[in-house]
C-alpha cells in the first residue's frame, strides 16, 4: 500500500491546473452569458425581462450538482457526444451566467437614473448609452462582488469530481483510495483550495472597503 509522500502531494497539486482551467472557462463563459442576462433583465422589452428572469430562477433555484447531472446525462439523450470536461464546462457556464447576471443587474440599476436620462437627452442610442455611460460606471460597482463570485466558481468546480473530472477533489479521492490516509489527503486538498480562494476573497474584501470609503467621501 502506498503512503502519502511528496509524489502523492504533487499529483494533487498538478490537478490544481485543471481546477484553474475549468474555473477560467466557467468565468469567461459566465461573464459573456451574465452580461447578456443582466442587459436582458434591465431592458425595456418585457419578453427579455421575463425570459432572463426565468433563466435566473431556474439556475438559482436548483442545485449545481443537478445541473451538472442534467448536462452530463442529458446531452447523450439529445444526441451530443459528451465528456466530463464539456459537461462540467457547460453546466458551470450556465450556472455562473445566472449568478453573475443577477449581480450585474443590481450594479446596472445602481447607476443613477439621471445618467440614463442625460444620455437619452443627448440622443445616444441604446448601444452607446450602455457602452459609454452605464456599463463603465456599473463596472466599478461590480468589481468587488465579481471577484468575490470567482471564489464561488472555484469552489463549484469541485462538484465536477462527482462526474469523474480529474480536478483537485477527484485527485484527492484517487490518492485517498490508494493510501487510506484521509486526514492528510483531504487536509492537503482543502489547503490547495484555500491557497487559490483566499487571495481572491481578500482582494474582494479590500475592493469593497475601498469602494465604500470612496462613496462615503
Amino acid at each position, binding site marked *: 500500500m502506498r503512503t502519502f509522500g511528496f509524489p502523492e502531494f504533487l499529483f494533487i497539486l498538478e490537478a490544481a491546473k485543471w481546477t484553474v482551467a475549468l474555473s477560467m472557462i466557467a468565468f469567461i463563459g459566465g461573464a459573456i452569458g451574465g452580461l447578456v442576462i443582466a442587459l436582458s433583465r434591465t431592458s425595456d422589452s418585457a419578453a427579455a425581462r421575463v425570459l432572463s428572469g426565468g433563466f435566473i430562477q431556474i439556475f438559482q433555484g436548483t*442545485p449545481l450538482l443537478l445541473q451538472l447531472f442534467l448536462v452530463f446525462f442529458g446531452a447523450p439523450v439529445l444526441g451530443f457526444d459528451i465528456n466530463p470536461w464539456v459537461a462540467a464546462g457547460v453546466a458551470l457556464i450556465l450556472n455562473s451566467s445566472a449568478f453573475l447576471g443577477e449581480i450585474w443587474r443590481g450594479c446596472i440599476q445602481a447607476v443613477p437614473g439621471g445618467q440614463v436620462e442625460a444620455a437619452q437627452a443627448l440622443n445616444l442610442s441604446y448601444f452607446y448609452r450602455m457602452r459609454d455611460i452605464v456599463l463603465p460606471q456599473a463596472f466599478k460597482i461590480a468589481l468587488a462582488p465579481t471577484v468575490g463570485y470567482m471564489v464561488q466558481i472555484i469552489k463549484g468546480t469541485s462538484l465536477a*469530481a462527482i462526474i469523474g473530472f480529474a480536478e483537485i477533489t477527484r485527485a484527492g479521492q484517487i490518492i485517498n483510495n490508494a493510501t487510506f490516509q*484521509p*486526514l492528510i489527503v483531504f487536509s492537503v486538498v482543502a489547503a490547495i483550495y484555500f491557497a487559490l480562494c483566499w487571495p481572491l476573497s481578500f482582494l474582494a474584501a479590500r475592493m469593497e472597503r475601498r469602494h465604500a470609503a470612496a462613496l462615503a467621501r
Partner: protein
Amino acid sequence: MNYTFQFGDVFAAWPLLLKGTLSTLQLSLLAMLLGLVLAIFCAWGKTAGPRPLRMLINAYIELIRNTPFLVQLFFFFFALPALGLRWSAYTAALIAMVINLGAYATEIIRAGIESIPKGQIEAGLALNLKRYEIFRFVILKPALRAVYPALTSQFILLMLSSAVVSAISAEDLTSVAANLQSQTFRSFEIYIVVAGIYLLLALSFSALFRVIFRLSLNYPDRR
C-alpha cells in the same frame, strides 16, 4: 433528436421521491436551525468577545468560506473517523452543513449587529439591562431583521448545496435519484423531475421565510 421521453418509471417511484424529498427537507431544516444558533453565538463572539475568541472565529470563517463544501463533507466523513470519531453518513452530512452554514451566517449576522445604532445600545445600558439582555433584546432582533433577506437566501443556498451529501451516500433526494437512475436507466427524466422538486422546495422555503418575517419581524421601524 429521436428520443422518446418516458416519465412513467419516474412517477411510478413517487413514494421513493417523496421519502427523498422529506429527508432533504429534514436535513436542511435541522442544519438551518443549528447553523443559525452557531452563527448567532459566533457573531456575538466576533463583535463582543475577547481577542483570542475573535481570532479563532475569524480563522473558522475564512477556512470554511474558502474551501468547497464537498471537500468539507469528505473531511467530516472520511478524515475525522480516521481520528476515531465514528459517525454515520447522515450525521457527517448534518455536521458539515451546520459548520458550513455557521461560517456564512456569522458574517451576515455580524453585519446586522454592526448596523445597530450605538444610541440604541446606550439606551439599553441606561435602562440598566445586563449585557446578555442587551444582546438578546436590543441587538439581536433588529440585527436579524436588517439582514433577513441575505440570511434566508443563504439558507436556501444551503438547502440546494445539500444535494452534494449524496456523494458520501447520505440519504437525500439526490441519492434517491441516483438509485432510481441505476434501476431504470431513465437518468435524464429522473434528473429533470428531481431538479423540479428542488425548485419547488426553494420556492416554498422563500414563501415560508416571507411568512416568518411577517409574523415575527414585521414591526414598524422608527429611524
